[in-house]
């Protein structure tokens, strides 16, 4: 009897935990959209801040949206051309050297958890060391370093599951290791890799702490890599610290924009990974 009670008690706690998680997500989405969508307008999406924007005059956050897109597309591109070859190298070239492989995975696990503010501080020192100013380029370099471990780990996780037979067949038919990597192994897991890239993109676009020191902030849309760039998370942060209610409302609207972008990324990566699971051997 007592055992029954115990089980019911703990199952109650489990139910409660699940409900809390569902409730909190609902609450976050609801409160952001309720507050943000009311001040969201076409003007916010399509215009740069005009003079007096930060006192409540007209304008929008197009500078931040474009800045964020440039920055995260750039960083994701850089991280892809470094990260995907690394993941392939680990799973094609090093697949027999378990010790080396484990060491690299261990290192990746370690830096995977390093907070973005640390990358921000490091990026700032690197920027001074290289002699460049706060700019789109400095931001891209910092964010690339930040998402690189995430991207490699995610790709590795996917490539790890590709069957050894595939690799062996390709090699035994006379393909070079490059061809095996990029034409066979990569293609086999392609939609999984795209999911990993999308995940990193989401990380890049949402992170503020790493670009705080490095990307700078500006009201104009950057036209070259050496110009500073505004980012959406930072624009939310700065607008929120304003005492003017209109500006604060715009911060909420910007938060809603950022949330929508993240939701789109999340849904599409989910759809893709479903496809990946379907096509698996």
């Amino acid at each position, binding site marked *: 009897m007592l055992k029954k009670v115990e089980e019911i008690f703990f199952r109650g706690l489990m139910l*409660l*935990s699940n409900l809390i998680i569902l409730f909190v997500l609902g609450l976050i989405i609801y*409160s952001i959209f309720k507050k943000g969508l009311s001040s969201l307008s076409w003007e916010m999406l399509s215009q740069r801040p005009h003079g007096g924007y930060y006192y409540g005059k007209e304008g929008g956050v197009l500078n931040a949206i474009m800045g964020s897109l440039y920055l995260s597309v750039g960083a994701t591109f850089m991280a892809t051309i470094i990260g995907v070859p*690394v993941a392939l190298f680990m799973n094609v070239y090093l697949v027999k050297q378990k010790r080396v492989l484990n060491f690299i995975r261990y290192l990746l696990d370690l830096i995977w*958890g390093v907070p973005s503010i640390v990358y921000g501080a*490091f990026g700032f020192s690197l920027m001074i060391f290289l002699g460049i100013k706060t700019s789109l380029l400095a931001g891209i370099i910092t964010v690339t370093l930040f998402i690189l*471990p995430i991207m490699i780990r995610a790709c590795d996780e996917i490539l790890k599951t590709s069957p050894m037979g595939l690799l062996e067949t390709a090699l035994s038919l006379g393909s070079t290791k490059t061809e095996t990597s990029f034409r066979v192994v990569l293609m086999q897991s392609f939609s999984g890799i795209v999911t990993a890239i999308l995940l990193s993109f989401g990380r890049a676009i949402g992170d*503020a702490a790493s670009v705080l020191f490095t990307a700078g902030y500006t009201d104009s849309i950057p036209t070259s890599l050496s110009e500073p760039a505004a980012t959406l998370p930072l624009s939310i942060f700065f607008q929120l610290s304003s005492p003017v209610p209109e500006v604060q409302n715009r911060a909420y609207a910007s938060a809603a924009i950022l949330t929508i972008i993240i939701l789109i990324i999340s849904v599409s990566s989910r759809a893709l990974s479903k496809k990946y699971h379907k096509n698996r051997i």
Partner: protein
Amino acid sequence: MIVLFYNRKTKNRLSTAWMYVAITLVILLPFMLGIGLYFKSSLLFVDNSLGDLLFSKVWKPSQGKFGFFPFIMGSLWVTVIAMLISAPICIFAALSITQYSKKFYLRIIHPVIDILAGIPSVVYGVWGILVVVPFISNVIAPVFGAKTMGYSILAGAIVLSVMIIPFILNILIEIFNTIPIELTEASLSVGATKWQTIKFVLVKKAVPGIMAAIGFGFARAFGETMAVLMVVGNMVQIPKNVFEAGYPLPALIANNYGEMLSIPHYDAALMFAAFILFVVVMFFNALMRMLIVRYDKY
């Protein structure tokens, strides 16, 4: 022409070379981070001993006094309370997801976890300001007879606890799934109830994994910046209770980058804060990794 371009060996050599360059960069990255931050903060050690830096309460950058103790305490308060909130939720949720849930519920909860994990830090901060801060100042604080604006350690901890739920939960789900099914089946077949099996077999077997998940969560929470910064109050003091404002290390770095170069040694101090974060996180991750190594063997 085509033959020239389509030289397979050259292609292979080029791409292999690039892979070596890329992987060298990745392997060097943690060392670069550590050495770079240490080097940048080393100016601070000229006038201050390590003990002074870590345990002194005096924070007066303009006089060259850098005591990080209030910030370290601020970080610990926020992180520990956040862990106390989210660890039980994650453990129970992971148990129910892996042991009890039906297929259709999994189709709901997995996207929910994914979305929670994807929401940017700043958005969590905005949510904290909109919901958590007023809730604390209007509802929770009066119950305990405390007066606060709501911008407090507790607000930071609550926001943080929500942020790390998906992170810990995903690790826990993975860990519970690696426990061999034969173990639980054996227990069930000798007549144990489902709950007894979970309690005496599954959880017992997973204890190191659960500890590791919580440790990873701690390291993750310790370095979280923007969301906490927005709700925690940011006053340089050692908090005496959860309704007081605190000033965690990441917030210190993020808030002061502007005046970093105007006060001597201030930049070194901020880099030292980043270095502390780096060391703590790496240390925790290394430790927890050791705990779960055994799971890979199954």
